[in-house]
């Protein structure tokens, strides 16, 4: 048993972890009750679990919680809320860029990291950025439109 101090969505939290290998995803979902980051593959292949660590998009299913240290973790919940959505969340609503929505956490978090370093990405930039985020419903074109909309806002 080890105590782990983390900074999640601008709040310091302390969790108890009995295995240093436990991925961050399980801390966020099960210890902190967050639902934004989702379990998709556990292999870093699909992107459903994406969160930000110090502004970088990270696959939380594949990075041990014990390795985060003082890194600032932001999840989909930390980006915005129904009442105060981030411009990307609003753009996804405006474009109705969801089918089942299971992958959408990863799409928004990956895109937020892109917009932070490139505020007005082209369609090609967006497609390349999301090349490792999988969607099975076929919502891709709406997702790209939503990110373009946010990039123009």
């Amino acid at each position: 048993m080890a105590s782990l101090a983390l900074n999640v969505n601008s709040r310091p939290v302390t969790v108890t972890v009995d295995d240093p290998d436990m991925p961050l995803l399980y801390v966020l979902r099960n210890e902190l009750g967050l639902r934004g980051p989702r379990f998709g593959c556990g292999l870093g292949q699909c992107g459903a679990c994406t969160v930000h660590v110090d502004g970088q998009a990270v696959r939380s299913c594949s990075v041990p919680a014990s390795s985060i240290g003082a890194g600032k973790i932001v999840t989909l919940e930390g980006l915005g809320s129904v009442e105060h959505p981030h411009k990307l969340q609003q753009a996804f609503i405006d474009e109705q860029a969801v089918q089942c929505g299971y992958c959408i956490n990863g799409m928004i978090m990956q895109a937020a990291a892109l917009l932070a370093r490139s505020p007005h990405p082209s369609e090609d930039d967006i497609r390349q950025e999301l090349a490792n985020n999988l969607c099975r419903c076929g919502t891709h074109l709406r997702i790209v439109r939503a990110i373009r909309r946010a990039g123009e806002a």
Partner: protein
Amino acid sequence: MSVSALRLSRRGLLRSTAALVVSFSVPLRSAGAQPAAGGKSVSPNAVEGFLAIDATGHVTAFAGKVDLGTGMQTTLMQIVAEELDLPLDRLTLVQGDTALTPDQGPTSGSLSVERGGMQLRHAAATARQALLARAATRLGAPAGALRIQDGTVFGPGGAQLGFGALVADGPVTMPIDPAAPLKPPADYKLVGRSVPRIDIPGKVTGGFVYMQDFRLPGMLHARVIRPPAIGATLQHVDEASVQALPGHVRVVRRGNFLAVVADTEWAAIKASQTLTATWSDTAILPDQATIYDYVRATKVVHDNVTSDVGDVDAALAGAAHRLSASYDFAIHTHGSIGPSCAVAQVVDGQVTCWTASQSVHTLRTQLAAMAGVPVANMRCIYLAGAGCYGRNGHEDAAADAVLLAQAVGQPVRVQWMRQDEHGWDPKGPPVVIDMQGGLDAAGHLAAWRGAFFYPDATSQNVPLLGGDLAGLPSDGQLNPGNIVNDSAVPYHVPAMRTVVHRLASTPLRPSWIRTPGRMQNTFANEAFFDELAAAAGADPLDLRVRLIDDPRGAEVLHRVAAMCGWHTRLAQPADGKTAIGRGLSYLYYELYRTYVAAVAEVVVDRTTGDLRVRRFYVAHDCGQIINPDGARNQIEGNVIQTVSRVVKEAVTFDRKMVTSLDWASYPILTFPEVPEVVIEMIDRPDTPPWGVGEATAAVVPAAIANAVHDAIGRRVRSVPITPDKIKQALQGA
């Protein structure tokens, strides 16, 4: 149970798992199938089965159809609210709860609006008449002098009564009147509009509760450990191998069903990876390299003749020009982005299972049989999972959860890992189709014959994996059924015969995957039609229009032709290295509903065989459109998902089991590869609404195959259309 207790607070749903349990539930201890006297009716023939109005005038609708990520929740709400003249924010929809919702059949087959939505429409129309009649009595005015606006009935001289006041003397309970007058479409305010989906704000901010998010107090976490080979038997389990792990790991074994249960999710995962088990060395699968020979050699148990016109043998024998071709279609997996998950608990012999199943009512029967409890003691409650696109692993995860909850006596959550989903969800079976056709001396289509090879269907249900491994009844048999549709063609041919040969077995547990059968059948039919058109020297579009004799069908064909500029040849790149092609495909879905015409535009690299679908045009007529943007979203999804299946996907296996166990070994289409999709929808508000969720997928494979032929002058009759197959076609004569 009071209606207000059922009212599902959206805010509560978004905010709190505890609130979710309360708001979805009649008390869990009375969660029986036949609700106790005074319980909620689940009759599909009664207004009170589908609708409840509380004292505030808030309406709760109960749907056996569920939202699988298609927007169906919003769509069904539009239908009900429209018919009642109710604002959407005074309507709540409860989906898929065997204690609360009528059995409307599985959410499949593009029938949620066409059948499920129409049941709700008629229930609402009946309730509307009842409310008007009550108001007429109370207000002393003829019903014809009343109007409803925003959930309030208005009478002469400013008199008004809200729905809440109208149920003060008792709920609206009566048989649904199929003849109850429906609102004229010209008066629609909600139906026909792109109402934003009510689930999307929660889904983009992390508040939405998916099946995978659901938690119960005292709940344990489980992982299943599947055999290393299909058919392998469990010989020995070394429980000591996990005893040193944290998390109070327990091993559950029943026959060949093996699982670990622990206090935390990570402990269960570690234990599942650590547990030592010995299985028999079993290898019963056929050789993948010759899978289609295996399909052809499988015993045929019976035939479905799906069309039989004229004398095909004579017509083929007498044809001036005969053509034959064989098509095959690979095994596909559903590929849900979220692996299957379920939670079950047993309290005083009452079993409750939270599940993302597309079919809670049939699942309930299956689970009851497996668990050895009366159906009345089994309740299944739907929570949305990741998109499933047919019967995937959700039902099997439900079986796992029920088995484990019974075994350990505490609530159990089972979450499949990626390899469980890719390895063990039931698959779209391998399909072989043989076509023959004949042209007369004038080049007219004179004969058409199709032979289709599919596993037999003897049951509505796919067997439950966990139940089968445990040696328990699983109330299912070889499937999928109902895949014979669209094996017959919508064309007038003087002699035609189409036969579906039903096979005694298929290598992997078969299931339905989006547009099951219709997709494979339409692939062969529409590609072969192109071959015959080419042999006849006819334009494939003109020939289709000539042979369908159907104005609605002709309209989608003419529309798609105009959209893509069909009669103008595409310019070819000057380099000669790549070739561009365009291919058409047409569908009259199941020969009675939804018309689709589509054109694929592809780029083929003549050297590498690389295939890119760069644009896809769809003209679509599904009758009355409830939510145009929702329909468009579904059509886009149909195209993109099926392009992925056609250019990339094939389940691989060795003699033991599936070997494509992740996204690296089973790649799907990625963002840089997604085509532009151009859609035109024809709205016919005065006609019945037909399905949207499957039809477009059916036309995609042949449109691409025909486009490849247009580009390189060679046919590839095998899905997936891989670079290797294209190179082989280019090198062939």
